[in-house]
């Protein structure tokens, strides 16, 4: 009989619900009596991670901005806007009657206020003091545990890892030892660009595919460096890929300076679709897919 009860406890999830769920966020262990149902995401990365876990938040910060800059995964129309990421409207948050408020990084400044409305989880996601990629995976798993979506999370991470490994293998087979270096950039305007380096999901995608960047960017919080376009001249052998959109394209691409760039002359420049490059752990897979498609048409 005791054995049967033990078996029931282990295999019947309904019975284990009574057990409080304890997870660890950036501030220490946090206990939840039940799985939160009404969740608020304090920024776009958290909103994206929730959607990847099949959880629809009740409200997110800067909804219009999410639809403009992040786009995928698509935000359902039921989600409410709670105001700006830097200064959310706390009264709107109260009206949404949340049972969990998710914050990350600089959102810590709001944690004290938010905790009076509902339990708060705060994650360290982007920081120059740790490696963003493993930290992102850890945060994703922590969230999954809270929502009982561990299986989904593991499946998504494993699928991404498998696809990355497969893509890396295909590239290796296709290029052999001549695998090109790829420098990933995003144009700020027609004169300046952001170059992705260590600690950014975009750079992690490169590494996972067995590629490397020709321009060295020191490790930083977001893993990016701002450079003038002429500095791209140091990409002599490899390829350059830029994320769309680039509105001032015509003003740069027609110039003699741009035409003299080694990677332009050797036709080693390609565009990548618009991807929000400061998202959760699955961003790595999205960027890798884009790079892979650009390398192997």
């Amino acid at each position: 009989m005791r054995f049967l009860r033990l078996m029931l406890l282990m295999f019947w999830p309904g019975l284990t619900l009574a057990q409080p769920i304890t997870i660890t966020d950036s501030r220490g262990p946090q206990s939840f009596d039940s799985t939160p149902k009404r969740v608020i995401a304090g920024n776009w990365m958290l909103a994206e991670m929730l959607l990847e876990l099949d959880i629809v938040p009740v409200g997110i910060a800067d909804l219009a901005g999410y639809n403009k800059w992040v786009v995928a995964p698509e935000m359902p129309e039921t989600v409410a806007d709670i105001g700006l990421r830097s200064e959310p409207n706390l009264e709107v948050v109260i009206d949404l009657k949340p049972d969990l408020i998710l914050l990350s990084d600089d959102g810590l400044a709001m944690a004290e206020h938010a905790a009076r409305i509902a339990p708060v989880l705060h994650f360290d996601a982007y920081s120059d003091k740790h490696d963003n990629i493993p930290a992102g995976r850890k945060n994703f798993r922590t969230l999954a545990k809270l929502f009982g979506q561990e299986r989904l999370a593991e499946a998504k991470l494993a699928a991404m890892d498998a696809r990355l490994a497969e893509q890396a293998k295909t590239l290796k087979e296709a290029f052999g030892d001549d695998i090109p270096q790829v420098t990933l950039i995003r144009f700020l305007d027609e004169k300046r660009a952001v170059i992705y380096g260590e600690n950014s999901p975009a750079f992690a995608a490169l590494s996972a595919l067995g590629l490397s960047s020709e321009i060295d960017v020191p490790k930083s919080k977001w893993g990016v460096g701002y450079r003038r376009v002429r500095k791209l001249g140091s990409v002599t052998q490899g390829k350059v890929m830029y994320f769309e959109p680039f509105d001032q394209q015509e003003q740069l691409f027609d110039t003699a300076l741009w035409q003299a760039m080694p990677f332009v002359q050797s036709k080693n420049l390609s565009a990548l679709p618009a991807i929000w490059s400061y998202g959760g752990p699955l961003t790595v897979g999205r960027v890798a897919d884009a790079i892979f498609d650009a390398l192997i048409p």
Partner: protein
Amino acid sequence: MRRPFPITFLQLALLVAALALHLVVNDALSVRPLALLSTPGLEEVLFLTATLPRITMALLVGAAMGLSGALLQEISQNRLVAPTTLGTASGAWLAMVATASLAPAIFADQKFWVAMSGAIIATGLVLVVSGRQQMASLSLIIVGMCANLVFGGLGMALVFLDTEATKPLFIWYSGDLTQTGWDQVRWFAPQLALAAFITPLAARAIALMRLGGDQARSRGLWVFPLIALSVTLASWMTAAAITCVGIIAFVGVLAPNMVRALGVRGVLPTLLLSAWAGAICLLAVDSLPIALSNWSKELIPSGSAAALLGAPAFILIAMHKSTSLQIEAAPFLPVRRRAWKVNLLFVLAIAILLSCGALFVVRTAEGLVTDFSGGLRFDFRWPRVLSAAGGGIAMATAGTIMQRLLRNPLASPDIVGVTSGATLSVVTAVILLGLPFSHAVLPAAVFGGVAVAAILVAMNHHSRSGPGLMILFGLATSATLDAVMNFVLARGGDVGYNLLPWLSGTTAMQSGSEALSLVVIAVVGLGLATVSARVLDLVSLGSHVAEARGVSMRVASPIFLILSAALAAATTAFVGPISFVGLLAPHIARMLGARMALSHLLLSAAIGALIMILSDHLGRILLFPQTLPSGTIATIGGGLFLFYLLAKKDKFHNRT
């Protein structure tokens, strides 16, 4: 021009030196001269299409800024005027940010016309508001500074609402001379050439302006058309320069002063040599950001470097020339003979009414509703309202003390640089030293504010120039703050953005205890000031009168300055830099009949609280569900009201 040869020689030598410096930092030495013509490699192409255009652009933009600075200075007979001190540049910037975020299509196609309209409207506004009588005086500079604050505040609100779209604009706002070809030079050069061609034609007419507007008019000069023409020319050059490379501060104000320091006197030589001096200055200064960018691997904008180098130079010129600037000592609006006590009750009643509104009227998805439910929603609301009131009282008290002490109706902690100093100190502590904001903000702000006050006290002792110099010092401090902030924000994706809400003056994340602390500080400050109201009365009659009645100015003035600075710095620490409240509240108090220090202090404190409570409430309901920082609302509203007051005062002058 008395000594044409040495000046020409000096300029040529400087040009060669600046050119050489630029080429060295740009790695131009690795260029193979022969390959330039035959088979240019990448190095050679970069030299031809990036380095050379950049040098040319630096020279052209420098010349444009120098020429427009000289033009505006001649026309106003005010040596501290320039496109960046008259609101010309910030007007263009605001117009561009607004179109970039609201109508991106227009922005992409019509950048120049957007910048141009912004520049002309802003400059025109500043000149109209300050009034033709005041062109030669410091008030023009102060109005220009207020314009910079208002336009900057509006621009910041837009940045706040759409950070991702406006991020790239920051580099351009900081002024960056980077070129990727000759297109912009080809576009800019003819515009400058045309402006440079028209200017000498007007030189003889402009020369008459040196006699003063009335004299010039009596000799048959069409003063107004001449001013309009000069302003258009200067705005045109500025807008064109801004369209290409963004805002380059200080070159415009410094170049003409350098030329004068070299002994140039005539109008035409001053104009032309200022263009030369501007060109050389900007070229020389531009080597610094390139060298720094190469060394630090960060992108350092040219404008930030120019501002960092320019600010101290500006103070030096101000110290030298400030005696020649008239400073109006009288309040610019007549004191109405009304019972201030009645008005105080009246203001308090409105303030209480507005507080009730701020506390109980909220905007929800359904619109404006009253909400007496209390609970958590109320717990978040009252600290906001309370800290807004506290900040308003503190800034108003600080402003009243300063206006009485400096006997200048346009003095206030934000104008003399106390607020900027406090902000700069916090930014430095948090971003450059990496200290945690929550712990560093109060000590850093107080340190910065009091440090500026100490410098002001020292200046006051050192020279007899008084308030004028202080205000110019404040202008330089806030320009330095701007330069540092833009540099920090231009680096992008960094801690700088976390400071944006605080920098705009927000009451959003105040806890109850913080709000109470601020109110206590404000009330204690107000109390101290009211206790010493009699001394303040004597002080505002002038130092001679005060000394004669037994007040030691050597003791009193530092104490009042420090008290005022401490109040402003504490407010900055709690709710961020708040502009205009310290300037406006004491004014409105005077208009409502406050004559003696006691009534002045009490009335302006009530008005300050009223302004801030209203700003906080508007910030919460205007753009629901977004909330705008109360400081931004106060800056915009206060600035516009100040413009209105100043414009009205001009009419008053004309009538009498």
